[in-house]
C-alpha cells in the first residue's frame, strides 16, 4: 500500500509554485487568447480590440462580422428586413399591425404608406416608432431567419446591397439615421446591442481585415 495518495503527491509537487506566488514574484503571463473577449454586458457589443488576439486576419474578420450580426439579427433591425412583403414588430417578429405591405417602392401601398403613420421621430405618447425615411429594406436584403453567412454574402454583393461599395456599407452602418433608430427605438422597445458607433467600428474593422464572411454553420 503506497504511503501517499495521488492527490497528495500533486499537492506536494505544486508547493514550489505556491511558494513563488506567495513570495511576491510576478505570475506567469496568461496565454494569448484565441477567441475574442467575452461581452462585457448583456446588451453590449465587443469592440474591434477584443479580437486582437486572433492572429489570422480572415478568422478575425469572420469573428467581427459574426459579432456585428448580433445587431443585424436583432428585432430592431431584422423586423424591417423581412424575406416577404410584410414588416414585423416587437421582440418575437410578430406580423405588423395594421397589416401593411411593402408595395412597389418598399414604402407601402396606395392609401397605406409607411408614412401614413410613421413620422420622422418616435411618438412616445402614441408609441409609434419613427425616423427619417422610414421604409422596408429592399427585397434583395432579407435578413429575417437568415444566417450570418447569408447576410454577409448579401451585404458584400453590390447587386443585392443597393450598389454600395464596402466603404459605403461602413458609412451607412455608422451614420445612416434609420440605422441609428435601432439604438433609440422609443417606447418599450429593446435597443440593438452596443451603439451605432461601436457597430460602425466593427464593420470598419471587418472590412480592414478582409471582409471575410463567417462559415455557414457559424451562429452569433
Amino acid at each position, binding site marked *: 500500500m503506497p504511503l501517499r495518495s495521488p492527490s497528495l503527491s500533486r499537492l506536494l509537487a505544486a508547493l514550489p509554485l505556491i511558494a513563488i506566488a506567495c513570495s511576491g514574484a510576478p505570475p506567469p503571463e496568461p496565454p494569448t487568447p484565441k477567441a475574442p473577449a467575452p461581452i462585457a454586458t448583456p446588451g453590449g457589443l465587443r469592440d474591434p480590440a477584443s479580437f486582437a488576439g486572433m492572429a489570422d486576419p480572415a478568422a478575425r474578420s469572420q469573428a467581427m462580422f459574426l459579432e456585428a450580426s448580433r445587431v443585424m439579427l436583432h428585432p430592431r433591425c431584422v423586423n424591417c428586413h423581412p424575406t416577404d412583403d410584410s414588416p414585423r414588430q416587437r421582440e418575437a417578429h410578430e406580423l405588423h399591425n395594421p397589416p401593411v405591405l411593402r408595395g412597389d417602392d418598399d414604402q407601402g401601398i*396606395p392609401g*397605406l404608406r409607411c408614412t*401614413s*403613420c410613421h413620422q420622422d421621430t418616435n411618438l412616445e405618447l*402614441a408609441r*409609434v416608432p419613427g425616423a427619417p425615411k422610414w421604409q422596408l429594406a429592399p427585397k434583395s436584403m432579407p435578413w429575417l431567419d437568415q444566417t450570418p453567412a447569408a447576410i454577409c454574402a448579401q451585404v458584400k454583393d453590390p447587386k443585392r446591397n443597393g450598389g454600395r461599395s464596402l466603404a459605403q456599407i461602413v458609412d451607412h452602418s455608422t451614420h445612416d439615421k434609420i440605422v441609428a433608430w435601432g439604438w433609440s427605438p422609443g417606447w418599450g422597445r429593446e435597443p440593438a446591442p452596443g451603439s451605432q458607433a461601436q457597430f460602425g467600428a466593427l464593420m470598419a474593422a471587418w472590412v480592414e481585415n478582409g471582409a471575410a464572411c463567417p462559415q455557414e454553420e457559424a451562429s452569433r
Partner: protein
Amino acid sequence: MSVTLKINGKDEALDVDPEMPLLWAIRDVVGLTGTKYGCGQALCGACVIHLDGEAVRACVTPVRRAVGHAVTTIEGLSPDGSHPLQRAWVELAVPQCGYCQAGQIMTAAALLRKRPKPTDAEIDHSLAGNICRCGTYTRIRAAVKKAAEEGSAR
C-alpha cells in the same frame, strides 16, 4: 406659436404647438369635426385625412408636418358630397354607425388616385388598416368598386 395651414384650400392661421396632433388642430381649433378620433395610435384609421393627396393618420401627424402642404379632410373631398365614393356610399348604404366612414372614404380616395381600377385584393390591402366595428367591409369594397367603375376618381 402661430402656424399657417392650408386646409381644404383655405389658409388657416392657428396658434398651436407645432407638435400638436393635426387631428386636434383640425377638430378642436378649426372646428372641422368630420374627421374622427378613434384609437389615437394610428391603429384604426378613423382619423385619415390627405396631405398632398396621400392618406395620413391625423392622430399621429404633428402639425409641423402639414405646414406647406395641402390638407384635405372629408369636408373638402368635394364641395357638395358628390365625390364618386360619397355617391357610391349613399347608393349602397354602406355605413351602419358611421363612425369610421370618413376615414374609410379618405383612404379609398387615396387608393383610387393611384389605382383608378383597383382589384378586390388591392382594395382589401389598402383598406386593411381601417377598422369597422360594425363589419361593413363587404359594402365598403362594393362601394369602392362602384366608384371606380364610374371612372371619375379624383
